[in-house]
């Protein structure tokens, strides 16, 4: 008899589900075949175990332990709840922080913009002053306006750009009015540390015909300790056109500078 068929037959036999003739066949087989009997024995044991297992009740101890475990688990879940709350707090904090940060950044940007605005306003103001000054220096009608222009340059302009310097140099060398020339020279003397201003001042000494400006220029050069003008001073001391007072200053300059 095939093993599988026998097995199922034996299982049915154990369960008592077989018909009369089938039960007889199985009994005969069990009597005759020790291997079948052994299989019957094993199967019976397994099936009995299965039966007892299906009826297995959890022990009181097990239940107690389980309850305990459950309680513990529930206990552990309480702190878990607070853990759940904390991220909310953090989120609020983060939101507030973000708001403050955003506000701060916004404020900073606006301040930056304000500063830029102020800077631009200042620049505009400077540009205006400059234009006003240039306009005044250019006023051919009134010497006092030109004088005021030079005074504005002297008082308000901190660092002169080329345009301003050129306008002032032009005024110093070409203006028909001595007082205006002197004022332009004074304004330029404020910027004498700028190399091109220095150069323009030295160059002016060569062409300047106005005795007052000549004297003022020589004085300025002495103050600046400009040694490069000694040749020019020598020329002035022998210049027939130069006023005695200018020659005197040139001599003083030569004494002080060399």
């Amino acid at each position, binding site marked *: 008899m095939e093993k599988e068929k026998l097995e199922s037959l034996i299982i049915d036999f154990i369960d008592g589900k077989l018909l009369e003739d089938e039960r007889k066949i199985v009994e005969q087989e069990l009597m005759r075949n020790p291997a079948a009997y052994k299989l019957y024995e094993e199967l019976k044991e397994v099936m009995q175990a299965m039966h007892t297992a299906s009826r297995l009740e959890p022990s009181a101890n097990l239940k107690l332990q389980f309850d305990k475990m459950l309680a513990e688990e529930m206990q552990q879940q309480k702190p878990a709840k607070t853990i759940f709350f904390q991220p909310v707090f953090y989120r609020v904090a983060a939101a507030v922080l973000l708001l403050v940060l955003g506000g701060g950044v916004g404020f900073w940007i606006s301040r930056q913009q304000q500063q830029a605005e102020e800077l631009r306003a200042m620049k505009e103001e400077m540009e205006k002053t400059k234009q006003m000054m240039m306009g005044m220096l250019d006023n051919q009608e009134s010497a*006092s306006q030109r*004088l*005021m222009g030079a*005074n504005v340059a002297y008082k308000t302009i901190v660092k002169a750009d080329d345009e301003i310097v050129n306008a002032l140099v032009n005024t110093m060398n070409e203006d028909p009015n*001595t*007082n205006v020339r002197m004022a332009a020279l004074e304004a330029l003397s404020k910027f004498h540390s700028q190399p091109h201003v220095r150069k323009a001042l030295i160059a002016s000494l060569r062409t300047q015909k106005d005795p*007052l400006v000549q004297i003022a220029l020589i*004085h300025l050069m002495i103050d600046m300790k400009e040694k490069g003008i000694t040749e020019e001073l020598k020329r002035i001391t022998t210049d027939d056109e130069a006023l005695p*007072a200018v020659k005197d200053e040139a001599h003083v300059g030569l004494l002080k500078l060399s």
Partner: protein
Amino acid sequence: MRRIMTTITLMTLSIGFMQAQEYKVAKSSGRLEIREVNHVVVEGYSGNEIVFTSRSGKRDDDERAKGLRSVSANGLEDNTNLGLSVVDKGNVIEVQQLKRMDGPEITIKVPKGVTVSYSHTSPHGDEIEFKNVEGEIEVSTMHNGVQLTNVTGPLTIKTVHGDIEGTLNASVKAPISIVSVHGHVDIALPTTVKASVKLGTVYGEIFVDPEFKMDLERTENNMVKFSSDTVTGKINGGGLDINLSSTHNNVYLRKK
């Protein structure tokens, strides 16, 4: 009685004729440029024409010259009968005298809005005088002094050898720049004027009336700023730019 009346009338008339030696230009603005005129007094007044009058009287009259026109080597024409050439160039009126030396004594009355520019280089002539002028004055002389009486400015005055003396009006206008090389600069100013003054000399001295409360210019560290030859300070808190300087002589700032 009647005879006396007629004589008086005649006398006044003749005086009137003598004073009628005048020339007028209808201008109440612009520039009056006086060049190389030796004897000039400029007076401010509230009219609207520039009036030239001669103070020389009949002295210069020449019977022989009657009906002739005076011309000069420098191409000028006596269009005023005062020995003066007055040329109206629109915004600028140029005044020159025909004679190279000496020349007529001229009084010029100028309205308020006229800028007066006076330039003079020859060694001839007198001080130039300005009285009650309420406009801008520009003076540049080589030898002649400058006398200012009750003027308002703005003033730009320069002379090489001349002295500059003057009194400024209470309604003084900036800028005031008065410089001389060899002459002294002596200016009287009302004590109430708010001014930023700069007084300079190289070889002279500077004198200021003690009634002027002068705050000397200070550095950032609140130290008085000294320079070799200039005193810079503020009167009554500062304001109008006033610059007085003489290279070889003294500078005086006195109260009016």
